[in-house]
C-alpha cells in the first residue's frame, strides 16, 4: 500500500536526512522509531505529501506522490491518507460530527453524516457526536481524531506519536484500537514514535539512524 525508495530530505546544507526504504501492506502495521532529531516528523510529512522530498519516491496505492502537485496532491491526500497527530486538533467552531463530515466533504465533496455517525459508534463516542470538540475528554478527542482519519477509507493511516502522552494502560488501549481500526478498514498503519512501549506490541519496526 505504501512504499518509499531512497528518500532524502534536506532543510539546509547542515540538516539533511537519508531515510531507509519502507514498505507496508494493507492491514499491516509498521513502527518507525528514532531519537529526537532523527527526522521522524519530517519523514511522516514526506509520506503524507506535506513536504516535497529532495529526492526519491513515495508510492501510495500505486500512485507516485512526486507526480502530483497543488490541488491534485491535496485531493489525493484527502482521499487516500488519514492522519492522527500527537496533539489532536479540530475545527473548534464545529461539532464532532461536523468535523467528520467536513473531512469527507474536503476529500470527496460529499457530506455523509450517516457514515460519520456509524464510525463514531464503532469508536464508542456516538453520544458525543453533537458536542463541540473542546467539550470532549482527551481520550474521546483521540478517538474522534482516529474516526476522522478513517472516514474516507484511506489506504494509509499515518500517526505521529499517538501514545507518548499516555500512561501504560491507555497507551496499550490506543495502540490496540489503532491496529484494530486500521485492520478493519484495510489501511496500512504507519506509526512514527519514540515510545519504546509500542515495540512490544508491534513487531515490524524500522529505526531511523
Amino acid at each position: 500500500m505504501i512504499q518509499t525508495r531512497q528518500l532524502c530530505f534536506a532543510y539546509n546544507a547542515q540538516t539533511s536526512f537519508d531515510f531507509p526504504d519502507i514498505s507496508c501492506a494493507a492491514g499491516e502495521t509498521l513502527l518507525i522509531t528514532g531519537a529526537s532529531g532523527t527526522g521522524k516528523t519530517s519523514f511522516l510529512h514526506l509520506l503524507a505529501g506535506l513536504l516535497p522530498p529532495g529526492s526519491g519516491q513515495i508510492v501510495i496505492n500505486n500512485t507516485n506522490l512526486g507526480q502530483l502537485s497543488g490541488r491534485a496532491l491535496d485531493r489525493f491526500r484527502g482521499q487516500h491518507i488519514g492522519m492522527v497527530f500527537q496533539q489532536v486538533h479540530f475545527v473548534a467552531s464545529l461539532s464532532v460530527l461536523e468535523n467528520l463530515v467536513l473531512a469527507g466533504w474536503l476529500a470527496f465533496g460529499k457530506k455523509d453524516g450517516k457514515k460519520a455517525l456509524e464510525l463514531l459508534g464503532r469508536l464508542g463516542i456516538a453520544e458525543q457526536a453533537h458536542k463541540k470538540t473542546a467539550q470532549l475528554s482527551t481520550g474521546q478527542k483521540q478517538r474522534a481524531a482516529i474516526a476522522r482519519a478513517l472516514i474516507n477509507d484511506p489506504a494509509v493511516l499515518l500517526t505521529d506519536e499517538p501514545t507518548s502522552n499516555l500512561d501504560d494502560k491507555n497507551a496499550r488501549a490506543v495502540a490496540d484500537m489503532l491496529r484494530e481500526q486500521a485492520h478493519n478498514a484495510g489501511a496500512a498503519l504507519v506509526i512514527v514514535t519514540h515510545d519504546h512501549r509500542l515495540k512490544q506490541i508491534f513487531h515490524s519496526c524500522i529505526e531511523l539512524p
Partner: protein
Amino acid sequence: MIVTIARKNILHRPLNALLAWVLLTASVAIISLLLLLQGQFQQKFEASIRDIDLVLGAKGSPLQLILSSIYHLDNPTGNIDYVEAQKWMKNPMVESAIPLAYGDSYRGFPIVGTTPAYLEKYAAQVEQGLVFQQKFEVVVGSEIAQKGLLTLGQEFFGTHGTAAEGEEHQEHSYRVTGILTHTGTALDNLMLSNLESVWAMHDHEEEHEEHHTEVDEHATNEALGSHADETGAHLNTETGTDHESHQEITAVLFKFRSPMAVVQWPRMLAQQTSMQLASPAVEVNRIFSLFGIGIQALIWLGWAIMGLAAMSVFVALFNALKERRYELALLRTLGGSRAQLLGLLLLESLWLCTAGFVSGILLSRLALWFIAQAAERTYRFSLDQFGFQWPGEGWLLLLTLGIGISAALLPALKAYRLDISKTLADE
C-alpha cells in the same frame, strides 16, 4: 460547507464579531442616513423651484423671501402693491407670473391667494371637486386632506396670520371645493384660494380695525403691534391705510422667456422700486452650502467609523489566525486546498460586512422614520423612509464589501501560503 464553517467561525468568537459588526452597522447607518437625508432634501427643494426663475417680493432677506414664498417655511418679508407688481408681470419678457397673497391660515397651514396657474406650475390636478372660482372657495393640498383636517365641502374659519393660535376671522367662512393630487412639493401642505378671497377677508377686517381706531387708538396700535409680531404675512400692517390701492400681494413667481431678464431685472427692480427679486436657485444653493458643511463633516465621521470597522475586522481575523494556524493546516491535511483556505477567510470577513451592511441600512431607515416623524410635526416635511438612495447606497454596498475583502486579504494570503509541515511540527 466552507460558507457554513465561515459563519460558524464568526459565531465561535462572538466578541470579536460583535465589535466588528457594531462598528460596521454604525458606519453604514450614518452614511446611509446622511445620503438619504441629503438626497431627499435636495429632491424636495429642487422639485419646488422647477420653472421659477425669480421671485418678486418686499425688500428684506432674499433667503427669507424664497423660504416663505416657495417652501412656506418662513414668514413672508412683507407685502407689495398688486398694481405696481402687475406693471412687471405684464412685461413681454415674462412667460408666466403667478401672484401669491398670504392672509389666513387654518391649524397652521397657510391659505394662499393665487391664480390657477399656480396649480399648473406644480402639475397639481384637482383630484376631487373643483378648483376655486368664487371668493372664499379653497382647494386643499393632498397632505392636509390625507391627515383628515379638512374634507370636501367643509366650511371653516381661517385664523389670522400663520400662527396656529391666532385670532379667528368669524366674518366669513371658507369652503373646501376641491382636493389636490399629491405633488411632492410645498403645495401638498397649502390651501389655495383666489386673490379676491384674501383681499375681501382683510378689507373687512380693515374696516373693523379702523372703526376701533376712532374709539381707542392706543389699544388698536397695541393690537396691530402684536399682529405684526405674530406674522409678517399680515396684510393690514400699519402701512395699509390707502383704501384705493389696497390690493396687496406677498410675492410673484416669475418665469422668463429670455435668460437676459434673469440677469438684468434684479438690479433694475432694486433701483426703480422698493421691491426685490430673489433667485431661488442661488438661495437654495446657499442653504445647501450652509448645511452641506455639516453633512459633509458627518459623512467623514461615517467614513472614519468605517475605517475603524475595517481595522477591527482585520485585527480580529489576524489575531484569530495565530490560534487557528493549526486548524487551517489541519484542513489541508484533510484534503482542503489553498484556495479553500483563502476563500474561508474572505468569506468570514464578507459575512461580517454583509451583516453590518444589512443592519446598517435597516438602522438608517429606522432613524429616518424617527426623523420623519419629527420633521412632519415641526416642518410639515414628509420623508420617504423606504426608498433606496441610488446610486449612493449602491456604492456604499460595494465599498463595504471592498472593505471586507481588503481587511481579510492579508490574513487570507497568510492562510494561502501557510507552511503546513512547519505548522504541524511546531505544535
